[in-house]
């Protein structure tokens, strides 16, 4: 098997999901400088709602693609409502409070949403039903499944759609104006409450689709999944430069690729039997071409956070971020 090409394909798939989730973080941060830590949970609830719709409709008269579409169409408004309520109930009253207050509230909302999901869907992992045939295509010695193709295509379509919305429509211009200076935008007649609520709702809608993509790809969902997924997508947003849309997309894809490459090669790299110094100490394990791997691919989560640390140390504003002092 061609590990390199295969991991590129896998990395692009997970990276696309990270990118779509990262957009939710970066949009909200761009407009009100809040890290909405509950966004990962919104994605999780999207996956859970889709799971419920699919399991209750599967086996009925509806064709599988229609069921999947129904699941997505059901998950989107649920997540949009949660996104709206988060802003309205939890964050809006704290908009002029010191920045630490909404941040702590965000962490609290994340915990509350996760536990609401626990109460509704239970504590066991759910097998996300694979109701559509998933043919696999070979590219040289690597392969790509139709789920992977769909995820990549859908993500890129959503990213293009969002960019069009933000850069080409009047409301998008108003969003960017509000991000730059909420009070001056107010003088132009922009209702900041509306723009901020819309930012949350749009991010949540993208998150709902990301949740369904995640479930379809990994085949398993759990009420705690929003935490790690959210943290990784947040890392992706920081990597690209938080507040910057293109940065979130780039950061997400890059993070997915680094993670895939890392988990693809870490076993090979940390095989202690390849060096004479260490293999001489591990004679028993290394004989007959055996190996002693220090870190396996189960360490893949490390790479996202390793990258986050490296970015924070060497380029705190992110790859496409502006210098912080620019906001004068």
């Amino acid at each position, binding site marked *: 098997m061609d590990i390199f090409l295969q991991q590129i394909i896998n990395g692009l798939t997970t990276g696309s999901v990270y990118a779509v989730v990262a957009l939710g973080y970066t949009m909200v941060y761009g407009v009100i400088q809040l890290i909405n830590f509950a966004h990962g949970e919104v994605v999780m609830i999207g996956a859970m709602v889709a799971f419920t719709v699919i399991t209750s409709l599967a086996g009925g008269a509806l064709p599988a693609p229609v069921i999947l579409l129904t699941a997505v169409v059901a998950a989107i408004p649920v997540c949009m409502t949660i996104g709206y309520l988060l802003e309205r109930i939890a964050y809006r009253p704290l908009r002029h409070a010191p920045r630490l207050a909404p941040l702590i509230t965000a962490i609290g909302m994340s915990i509350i949403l996760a536990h609401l999901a626990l109460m509704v869907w239970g504590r066991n992992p759910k097998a996300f039903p694979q109701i559509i045939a998933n043919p696999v295509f070979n590219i040289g010695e690597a392969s790509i499944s139709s789920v992977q193709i769909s995820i990549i295509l859908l993500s890129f379509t959503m990213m293009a759609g969002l960019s069009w919305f933000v850069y080409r429509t009047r409301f998008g211009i108003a969003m960017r104006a509000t991000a730059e200076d909420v009070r001056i*935008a107010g003088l132009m*007649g922009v209702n900041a409450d509306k723009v901020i609520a819309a930012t949350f709702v749009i991010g949540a809608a993208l998150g709902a689709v990301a949740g369904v993509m995640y479930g379809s790809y990994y085949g398993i969902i759990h009420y705690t999944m929003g935490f790690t997924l959210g943290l990784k997508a947040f890392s992706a947003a920081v990597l690209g430069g938080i507040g910057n849309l293109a940065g979130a997309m780039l950061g997400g894809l890059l993070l997915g690729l680094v993670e895939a490459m890392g988990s693809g090669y870490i076993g090979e790299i940390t095989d202690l039997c390849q060096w004479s110094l260490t293999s001489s100490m591990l004679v028993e394990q290394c004989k007959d071409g055996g190996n002693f791997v220090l870190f396996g691919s189960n360490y893949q989560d490390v790479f996202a956070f390793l990258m986050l640390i490296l970015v924070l140390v060497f380029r705190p504003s992110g790859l496409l971020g502006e210098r912080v002092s620019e906001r004068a």
Partner: protein
Amino acid sequence: MNKPESSPLLDALNLEVHYGGIAAVKGVSFSVMQGEMVCLLGANGAGKTSTLKALARMINSTGEIRYAGEKINELPSHVLINKGLALVPEGRGIFARLTIAENLTMGAYHRQDKAEIAADVERIFTMLPRLKERENQVAGTLSGGEQQMLAIGRALMGRPKLLLLDEPSMGLAPIMVAKVFEVIQSVAAQGVTIFLVEQNALLALKVCSRGYVMESGKITISDTAPNLLADARVRAAYLGE
């Protein structure tokens, strides 16, 4: 210049602004008639900008503000442009990361008449040809004077009845100041009522018909522009004599 009509477009009564426990504006009253161009003079820290921000509802104030006969003290700032009240803030307040065309689009954000908006953009570009050349550049790349022009052009996109201008000459080269004031005068000639805050008293009094002088949060002198130009106190304090 348009002959002032008798009805006041803007009326402030006992306006007070506090920042925490500190009073920045201590009960000022003034009025601006329809079609008039009035200036508010004063040194740094006299409370001029706070007064304007209170009028545009960017900060809270006590006392009464009446615009076109309606009390606007409690309204949120984003509804004022719909009523024809626009502010060009201190330091220009353009959206540096938006293009010049997008800044103008924002100026007309509350309007729905697409064809008229497009016509207004062309009108602004004819008045300010430097902006037309750089239509699709981000506004942060403009010089200070060009940014001030853009800020005024953006406010005009809202078709205001009353234009509040906060220190349009600040930080500009003398030649640019002259150009900005030319534009302001041509706006006034189109019938827009103007309330101008300026530190440059000589310049302001040359274009305005009346003026108020503000000192440490209070209005101390109120008179016609020619009288103020002749007033010994004004000459001593603001014209360096």
